[in-house]
């Protein structure tokens, strides 16, 4: 048994950084905090790479398949003899892959932030939060217990909340952070109930054990769960759907996606890390983690598929109309995650049918690099122009050559132009969709085209279009620390597509044969190129074609620009239904009925007290009458009536 115990240090180092910076950073480590965070994370990254090498190349395989290794286990909270929250380190292909992605992207962001966040008052706090996030995310991906997942799920949520609200004196940032937390919290409710169901019927919270029990069709747990039902749907479907709702919330799937665009209020490196590369794919990761169970329940997979496909399309449409560059990127993230989701949805467990699973993970992997690259590039741009709006930009290619090239690479990668990384992963997804469901394939293809369009719309608007205003020029492109990550990530965005991913990460651990089919690739690539040319024609030079184009599409453009009014629906539900129709009545009931009853009791006592005061009339003869009345009443009562 190879020793993987050192992996525990990978999450623990950021945790240590967090504790140190959280307690003392503000006062004592104000300037050195960035350096400290980066160095400790660098160690984690190195360890991650070592672990990846050891697992994938040296000794991960047993009988030709990658196995699941539990490197560490501690019973953290024992609910009952069978149910307990364990703190596990589980090593399997996806966790190792995620380990590398998370630590590496996080390191890039750490480095980038050294320059980007320089001079901020809460510099140390920023790094503390980043470390907290990195810790939580790393621990999340290493989890082997579903409740452990939930714990770190919540922690990444709160880190995201804290980082979105980093500029706490901006009301919009505060609102965005609140929104992000509450929406994902709502989704987590589903996750939690799903866990309760799985834990109860499965009789354990350990994921491996759950998978073992719920995938063997004869096990009592599976039979019990399939037999139990609510509203005509089996408990298994309920549980998986609810868990998926949790994942959908975190991964910004429709209709729980509304928090993601607003989350762009946070510092841009944060968006690159959390809202592009790592946290938002946690939902995909969650489904992948439980994929064996999902694979036995077709209904749940259908839900995953269609939610993913619809989200991908919807986000792409909206992204075409947004003018805030970070929002465009946010919608693009949502769209890409939709890809990953439906790729999982169309997959099956094992063998050739498991292509979707592999593709999804592959896309997750490549997406992390180019999307964080895009965000960091956008960050560099924003750092320069001090604005998020496209209209304030244009012609920056000369001012920021490094950024420009990096951004272009990323755009090409996301558009799926060979040989950039995105091409390979997207190709697999489309292939998986083609085999499973033509309708999904059609949507995917259309979305791919839209993706290319809006990405290049973005690219051209920033770097071409009008000429740069002179005032921007004195800034320079940024420090070395900002450029380095761009370069490194660009290399990744180009190179990672060539990794033999299919031999490493598959649904069942067995390597999967993949081959690039030129004929199949023809359609998507050509459509993508068309979309790029369309974007170039519209946005490369300043002109009025975009406006005309928008006018031509009529209501659709406007609706997309307004994000299809989904935010408004939410606001309507909260402000017009929950607050006035549930909250206020309850507050009213509490004040006037529940409390009113108590007060009424007190007041009526006082009333009675006043009402009977005339008995004490002050007239001694009246007293005597009452006296005799008392005797008479007692006499009659006890002599005649009490028998």
């Amino acid at each position, binding site marked *: 048994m190879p020793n993987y115990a050192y992996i525990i240090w990978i999450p623990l180092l950021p945790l240590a950084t967090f504790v140190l910076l959280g307690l003392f950073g503000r006062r004592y480590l104000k300037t050195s905090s960035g350096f400290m965070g980066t160095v400790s994370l660098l160690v984690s990254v190195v360890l991650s790479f070592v672990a990846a090498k050891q697992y994938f190349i040296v000794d991960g395989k047993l009988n030709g398949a990658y196995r699941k290794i539990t490197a560490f286990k501690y019973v953290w909270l024992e609910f009952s003899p069978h149910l307990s929250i364990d703190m596990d380190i589980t090593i399997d292909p996806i966790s190792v892959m995620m380990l590398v992605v998370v630590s590496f992207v996080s390191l890039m962001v750490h480095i980038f932030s050294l320059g980007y966040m320089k001079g901020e008052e809460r510099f140390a706090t920023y790094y503390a939060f980043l470390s907290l996030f990195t810790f939580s995310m790393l621990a999340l991906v290493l989890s082997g217990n579903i409740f452990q997942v939930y714990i770190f799920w919540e922690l990444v949520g709160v880190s995201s909340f804290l980082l979105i609200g980093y500029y706490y004196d901006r009301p919009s940032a505060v609102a965005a952070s609140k929104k992000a937390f509450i929406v994902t919290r709502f989704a987590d409710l589903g996750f939690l109930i799903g866990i309760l169901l799985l834990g109860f019927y499965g009789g354990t919270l350990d994921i491996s054990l759950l998978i073992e029990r719920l995938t063997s069709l004869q096990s009592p747990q599976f039979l019990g769960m399939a037999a139990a039902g609510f509203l005509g749907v089996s408990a298994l479907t309920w549980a998986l759907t609810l868990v998926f709702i949790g994942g959908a919330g975190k991964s910004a799937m429709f209709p729980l996606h509304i928090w993601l665009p607003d989350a762009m209020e946070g510092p841009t490196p944060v968006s690159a890390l959390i809202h592009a590369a790592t946290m938002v794919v946690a939902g995909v990761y969650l489904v992948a983690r439980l994929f064996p169970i999902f694979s036995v329940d077709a209904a749940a997979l259908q839900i995953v598929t269609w939610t993913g496909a619809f989200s991908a399309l919807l986000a792409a449409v909206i992204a075409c109309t947004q003018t805030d560059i970070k929002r465009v990127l946010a919608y693009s993230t949502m769209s890409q995650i939709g890809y990953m989701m439906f790729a999982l949805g169309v997959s099956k467990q094992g063998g050739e049918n498991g292509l979707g699973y592999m593709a999804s993970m592959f896309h997750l992997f490549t997406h992390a690099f180019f999307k964080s690259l895009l965000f960091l590039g956008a960050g560099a741009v924003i750092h320069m122009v001090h604005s998020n709006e496209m209209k304030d930009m244009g012609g920056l290619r000369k001012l920021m050559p490094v950024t420009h090239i990096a951004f272009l690479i990323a755009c090409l990668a996301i558009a799926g132009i060979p040989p950039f990384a995105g091409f390979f992963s997207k190709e697999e997804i489309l292939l998986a969709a083609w085999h499973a469901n033509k309708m999904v394939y059609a949507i995917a293809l259309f979305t791919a085209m839209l993706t290319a369009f809006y990405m290049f719309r973005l690219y051209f608007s920033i770097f071409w279009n009008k000429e740069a205003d002179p005032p921007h020029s004195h800034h320079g492109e940024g420090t070395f620390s900002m450029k380095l990550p761009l370069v490194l990530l660009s290399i990744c965005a180009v190179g990672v597509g060539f990794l033999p991913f299919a031999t490493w990460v598959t649904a069942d651990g067995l390597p999967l044969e993949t081959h690039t089919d030129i004929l199949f690739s023809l359609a998507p690539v050509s459509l993508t190129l068309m979309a790029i040319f369309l974007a170039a024609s519209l946005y490369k030079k300043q002109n009025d074609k975009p406006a005309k184009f928008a006018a031509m599409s009529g209501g659709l453009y406007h609706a997309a620009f307004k994000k299809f009014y989904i935010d408004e629906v939410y606001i309507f539900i909260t402000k017009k239904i929950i607050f006035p129709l549930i909250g206020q009545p309850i507050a009213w009931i509490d004040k006037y009925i529940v409390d009113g009853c108590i007060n009424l009791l007190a007041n009526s006592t006082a009333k009675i007290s006043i009402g009977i005061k005339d008995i004490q*009339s*002050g*007239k001694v003869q009246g007293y005597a009458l009452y006296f005799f009345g008392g005797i008479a009443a007692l006499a009659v009562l006890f002599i005649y009536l009490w028998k």
Partner: protein
Amino acid sequence: MNTIPLSHILMVSTALFFIGMYGLFTRRNMITMLMAIELMLNSVNINFVAFNKYLYPDKLDGMFFAIFIITIAAAEAAVAIAIIINLYRNHQSIDVEDATELKF
């Protein structure tokens, strides 16, 4: 007197007792209220003496009780009248309805 049953004497005393009580309830003059109380006490005395004579002639319990009641009635009357006189000094009235400052 052999022919008069005990109950008749008791009826007389009962009637007298409640006549006294009526007086106590309705007379507004304190001194007349006091008189009403005397009537009530006297009726009880009749009871004691009659019981002693008719039912329990062996001992003199009822007789003595009556004697003590008479004594106490006197003491009570004396104190009551002293109080009434003091009240009269303070209130310039012995109407019981005038002495109703203390109430509720």
